[in-house]
């Protein structure tokens, strides 16, 4: 187990460096730079040149990369070109918002997808299974961006949830409980936009696993003994078939990350995805690199947790053969 954790920690470092280096490369090699905004809003040619020199943008790309790498290895993630603030503090705040969104979206996906998959895979509700399969196929076909747009439209027309933002105007003056509820209220649209397509993929995997498990001897025996539906679903069907489903949780990290960008833009959720998009669009190299590093760390940690959860459920999957 310790060898596994050390290996994963090493992989995390490599992933973080690779992702952030890729961001540095993209922002450095793409045409234009962060001084474009200054130029468009009145800075003179001489001022733009001075700003480029101050930010080191007049140096060759390789030299800039070397300087960035040296600082990063000393855990100095630099200062945002655009905001003039430490990248670490800018990224930390937004990463927390994204983690909240992703976490709740995952819970929502599990709460919807797993029971739906169990019911449709149990073989006991054929009509329901057909409907659930149809809905899942539709949700799997819809990208999170489209789901976010549809839900935003519905929310705007019905008023059943806010269409954008993380908190209501004036929420600063409310009590803690009211503010928590307010954030939960603002999570509805983005969580469903991210969570529903993910729930559909969980449902499909769970359905397939449950369909296999429903024909197993222990499951048939439990039915023959008259075990209640809920107990049968949980003990005879889900627990033996949970492992392949939980191992898919690790892959959910990639889905959540890629979907989060579009959802955060449409719903104005102040998360890491939106910050990364802005950093790339404005060629804010240190900030883009910091966002890339955070996203890579999120991916590595999440897949590790997914593997650990799978091993807890099924010791046969452990790398040391169950020891």
């Amino acid at each position, binding site marked *: 187990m310790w060898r596994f954790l050390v290996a994963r920690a090493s992989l995390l470092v490599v992933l973080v460096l690779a992702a952030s280096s890729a961001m540095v490369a993209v922002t450095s090699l*793409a*045409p*234009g*730079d962060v001084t*474009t*905004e*200054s*130029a*468009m*809003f*009145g*800075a*003179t*040619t001489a*001022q733009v040149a*001075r*700003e480029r020199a101050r930010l080191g943008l007049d140096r060759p790309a390789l030299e800039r990369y070397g300087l960035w790498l040296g600082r990063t290895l000393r855990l100095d993630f630099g200062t945002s070109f655009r*905001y*003039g*603030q430490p990248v670490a*503090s*800018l990224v930390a*705040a*937004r990463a927390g*918002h994204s983690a909240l969104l992703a976490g709740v979206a995952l819970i929502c996906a599990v709460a919807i997808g797993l029971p739906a998959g169990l019911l449709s895979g149990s073989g006991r509700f054929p009509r329901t299974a057909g409907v659930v399969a149809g809905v899942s196929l539709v949700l799997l076909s819809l990208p999170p961006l489209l789901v976010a747009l549809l839900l*935003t439209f519905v*929310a*705007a*027309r*019905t*008023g*059943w*949830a*806010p*269409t*954008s*933002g*993380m*908190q*209501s*105007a*004036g929420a*600063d003056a409310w009590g803690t409980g009211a503010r928590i509820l307010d954030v939960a*209220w603002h999570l509805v649209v983005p969580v469903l936009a991210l969570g529903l397509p993910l729930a559909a993929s969980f449902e499909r995997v769970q359905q397939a696993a449950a369909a296999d498990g429903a024909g197993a001897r222990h499951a048939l025996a439990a039915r023959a003994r*008259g075990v*209640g*539906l*809920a107990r049968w679903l949980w003990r005879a069907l889900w627990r033996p078939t949970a492992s392949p489903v939980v191992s898919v949780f690790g892959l959910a990290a990639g889905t959540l990350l890629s979907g989060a960008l579009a959802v955060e*833009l*449409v*719903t*104005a959720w*102040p*998360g890491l995805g*939106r*910050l990364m998009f*802005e950093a790339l*669009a*404005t*060629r804010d190299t240190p900030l883009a690199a910091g966002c890339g590093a955070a996203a890579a760390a999120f991916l590595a940690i999440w897949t590790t947790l997914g593997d650990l959860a799978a091993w807890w459920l099924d010791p046969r999957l452990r790398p040391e053969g169950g020891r």
Partner: protein
Amino acid sequence: MRSSRRALVPAFAALLIASAGFVVACGGSQPSTPAPAVDRRPVVAALRAEPRSFNRLAAPDRGSLVVSLLLNARLVELNHKTHEIEPALATKWSLAADGKTYTLDLRPGVTFSDGAPFTADDVVFTFAAVYDPKVDSPIASALTIGGKPIAVRKTGDHQVVLTFPTPYGPGLRILDSLPILPAHKLKDALAKGEFAKAWTTATPPAELAGLGPFVLTGYAAGDRLELARNPRYGARGPDVHPGVERLTLRIVPKQDAERVALEAGELDLLNSELRPDDLKAVRTLASAGKVKTYDLGPAIDAEMLWFNLRADQKKPAAARPWTDVRFRRAVLQAIDRQAFVDTVYLGAGTPVDGPITPGNKAWHASGLPQYPFDVAKAKALFAEVGVADTNGDGVLDVKGKPFAIELLTQRGHAGRERGSQVIAGQLKKAGLTVDVVALELPALVERINKGTYDAIYYGISSGDTDPSVNLDYWLSTGSFHVWNPAQAKPATPWEAEIDRLMQELTGLTDASARQARFAKVQEIFVTNLPAIFLAAPNLTTATSARVEGLEPGPLYPYLLWRADTMRLAQPH
């Protein structure tokens, strides 16, 4: 088995009741409470992007501009409706006989939001900060005349004298871009050379002090800024106070999300104008009394199509027929401007003849050379410069060789992308092949700066109606003289003439003399067509029905430029 199924029914009923309770308790996007006798909800305005800084002198972006207008005050204010300057912190001013020295009387009894008195020292300090080379303020160029700063000295606690390097036509209107900052808060930072890093968005709100109608009370990065009415506000006199207790600036990056939020009742003020596609839906809401729309007339700035007229081109001259003015006139005559308005702006636009739109009433010239829509005439002009259909395939070529123009525009800007496509489609009818390429803004600006393009369809915001404030565009030496920037000497006689006229009118203070010369500039411009203007959108913005007292105008920001008159509509 039967007992477990029977148990499902009451469980399902309980779930339904709980869900209903949840929906009732939540009841829509606002907490469900009895209608208050007084509307105490904050007014919510949209902001497209976060401010880069709370220090306007260090940040040129629009987010920082809007925040600065709310937190700070200026010596004079440019009225966005009348385009004239009005007193603010300066109550009156006089111009000396030399035509370049202004004496400004400052408003007495005004204090910053932290209680410190506003005096002439704050004005002197702010100018010093703008011109400080360590600050390298991006707004300094707007306050330099011919590359020289304005000299400022105090002649009393509430009087300053501004001496311009030369007589300057726009006069004090350039002070509209300068927020007056507190010397007592920022002088140490300036002395240490750290002014540019002062008042970033990480600064606690309590450390900020301003003369504006609002104070910052909270900032949730990426989400919103919370502001409250400044109880000490007095920049426009003791009787002018915002009628709104709290204002929230909500960051909404996408324009369609902004319109949806207005429709849902989550927004009161839009960040910018409505898109043509949204007008019908919003006007329907206005008919139902849910929102108010404000028609601001033709925009001050129109998008322009220009060709690369730089001399340092790798393409041979024969491949650049657009350097001949007849080609550019042909392009203009090949485009049906009314059809352009109907397609790009869905009818909500005004065809224009030149660079100054009818929205800029003081400076728009009539009687300019006309180039009516005439495809046959356009083809004849193309043929005169050697672009003709020599092989009868309906497509224009140059001496039998295929000829196409690459037209660059901004990706993600719907109006510019649509406009480019319409231009390409119209020119195709005249036989001209135009390939539209949409680029991200930084990539587009780089191509413009390097001069590696054939043609561009883009727009530049002027920020002021007075052309002398935008000399960088008109003068051949200017960096915004986009078709051929930063010329060492004028490349053409007509550019030399425009340079002469612009320098002349910038040094005059008589309005009608200035306008007469600028009318001549427009005539020369439209005769030589370095840039082609087709139409200006008719601007419409909107607010929720509960906000009133605003004075919308066609200069950005359309609504919040004067937030101190804003108030909540009284319930009927």
